[in-house]
């Protein structure tokens, strides 16, 4: 589904990714762990098409297409979804309108019929239950004045509505208490299907108790320094990151 090969990227003058290679197949969950500043979030944002980075060499192929040639909205329409570490507040646009616009733009791009506001509300009611959110949030502005936990739930709600093929969760667990973490992870697990995949970016092993990965990769200084199965996450939790980085 996703093939990243020898990806190098810079932000301004600084090289942040220094040769990342990663293959994600349908049905797989990959965890990307690593200390702060290792480039985890940069990788997530580059896959989603953030304009703040320049890919200097390497490639990303998504379902046979050159992902780096696609605009951010085209990537989303093709099934790539990034749950933001810091979801953006958009005062003045209601969640209901934002969700419906996104949903219909994605449908339209895929040659499917758009839903009218009433039909869409029916869909939303089901999805809201999944993340245990109050329907009243639909009438609030996007993320405006939301608590940290509400913002993260709202991200998972968007994911539930858009049903992406490739979901990237960028530190979705940061700042969440255990109840919110359970809800968020439950939402992610409920959306797991044999034909989609997820990349879970996290600093802590904690989230991986709930979202069990097939593969764990450790990113340090812009490179993947170690890959393994889910047991690697437990080892990192017990021993920290230093030993992997030294070994590399």
């Amino acid at each position, binding site marked *: 589904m996703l093939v990243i090969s020898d990806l190098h990227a810079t932000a301004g003058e600084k090289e942040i990714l220094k040769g990342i290679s990663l293959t994600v197949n349908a049905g797989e969950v990959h965890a990307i762990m690593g200390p702060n500043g290792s480039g985890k979030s940069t990788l997530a944002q580059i896959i989603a*098409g953030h304009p703040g980075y320049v890919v200097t060499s390497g490639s990303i192929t998504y379902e046979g297409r050159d992902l780096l040639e696609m605009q*951010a909205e085209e990537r*989303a329409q093709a099934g790539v979804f990034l749950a933001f570490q810091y979801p953006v507040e*958009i005062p*003045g646009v209601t969640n209901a309108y934002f969700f419906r616009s996104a949903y219909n733009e994605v449908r339209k791009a895929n040659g499917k019929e758009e839903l009218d506001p009433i039909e869409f509300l029916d869909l939303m009611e089901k999805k809201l239950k999944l993340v245990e959110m109050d329907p009243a949030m639909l009438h609030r502005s996007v993320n405006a004045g939301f608590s940290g936990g509400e913002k993260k739930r709202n991200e998972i709600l968007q994911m539930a509505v858009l049903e992406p093929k490739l979901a990237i969760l960028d530190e979705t667990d940061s700042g969440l208490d255990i109840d919110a973490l359970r809800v968020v992870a439950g939402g992610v697990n409920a959306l797991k299907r044999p034909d989609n995949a997820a990349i879970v970016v996290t600093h802590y092993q904690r989230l991986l108790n709930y979202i069990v990965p097939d593969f764990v990769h450790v990113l340090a200084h812009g490179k993947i320094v170690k890959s393994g199965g889910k047991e690697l996450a437990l080892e990192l939790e017990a021993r920290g990151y230093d030993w992997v980085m030294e070994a590399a």
Partner: protein
Amino acid sequence: MANAPAAVRSEGYEQAFASLRASSGPAWLPALRREAMDRFNALGFPTTRNEDWHFTSVTPIAERVFKVTSARTGAATLSPADIAALVIGDADWHRLVFVNGRFEPSLSAFAGLPADVRVTTLAEALKESPEFVAEHLGKLAKHDGHSFTALNTAFAQDGVVIHVPASEVVEAPIHIVHVADASAAGAGIHPRLLVVAEPLSQLTIVESYASSGAIAAPYLTNAVAEIEVGNGARVSHFKIQRESSDAFHVGTVQVRQGRDSMYHSFSYASGAALSRTNVYTKLAGENAETRLNGLYLIDGTQHADHQTFVEHLAPACASRELYKGILDGNSHGVFNGKVYVDPIAQKTDGKQTNHALLLSDHARVDTKPQLEIFADDVKCTHGATVGRLDEGALFYMKSRGIGAEYARALLTYAFAAEVLETIEVDALREGLEAQAFARFTQSFGEQR
């Protein structure tokens, strides 16, 4: 910028003044008008050398003489349906309609008011209760230093007088509609509004300014409102200016607030070739609150200038201001927010915010906050931004599959909606939101 000499400008107005038919009003009125005319003659139109008009040249107004139109003689040219199509309102509202500055009874409906609430035209009030008018007219809107106010006082033919007795609550908004039509070509329209809200009363006023059809020559709307908000009274005041590009619009609102009172003002301006809106409020009693919000949406060669002046003249008053502008084309916006805190006004809590969004490289905004604080125990802040759409928000929307152009349109609407949200009159808020939504997203054919 060269203005014609003041003497030349006012000579035309002096002739126009002399040709006004002597009104049947009370004896003091001609004297007041004469005095205002003299003041106007002395002041002339402001030039950009005047600090309050530094960014706004009124040359296009000063180079003509806008004469008062004569009263309509034929049948009414506009139907109630025409009015409904021109302004945002609700059937439940009390409505007074003026066409080219003249009251149109056939288009007006305000019979359902509480019996002791007085709502009349100025012409009627001058006949029925001249003492009341004499007591209040020109007391807040002084003509000695303001040429446009002087001009209004000299030429005002009609307007609205509202008197709400103590503790009376007027539920439905009173909607004052000013429409200019083809007969307004070259005319000066000088509406006057006088509001006295006695202690503990409550009132909502909506003023709408619109134009109907093609108008062959520019016209001038020069409105003055005086609003007395008694102790503990609450007045909400919405001014919706959507005149055509044939219009020059100058509006001045002068407010005085008593103890524990609340005055909420919202100024919406999307019309007129050149507009200047002044909202001046004096917080004259303790613990009063004022909220001045506004939104202007301009394009082409439009010029929109807003000036606010909040005078904290008593302790523990709060003022909140949020003005936003969205500018496209070669348009020019100006915001000048003045706050004065008197030495006696301790515990003042003032906050002023002004944001402008530039959609074009050729649009321009000048913004000037002015704080004069003479008390030491106060909290006063001001913030201003001029910018473009937030790239972070754009990426967020795009990452959800929303196309770049549509994301821009939605964010532009959102910028406007954030201040429209503060309008507590549902029909008005929804109407203006729909206007703004259509303005920025109509090319995408989306439904809200």
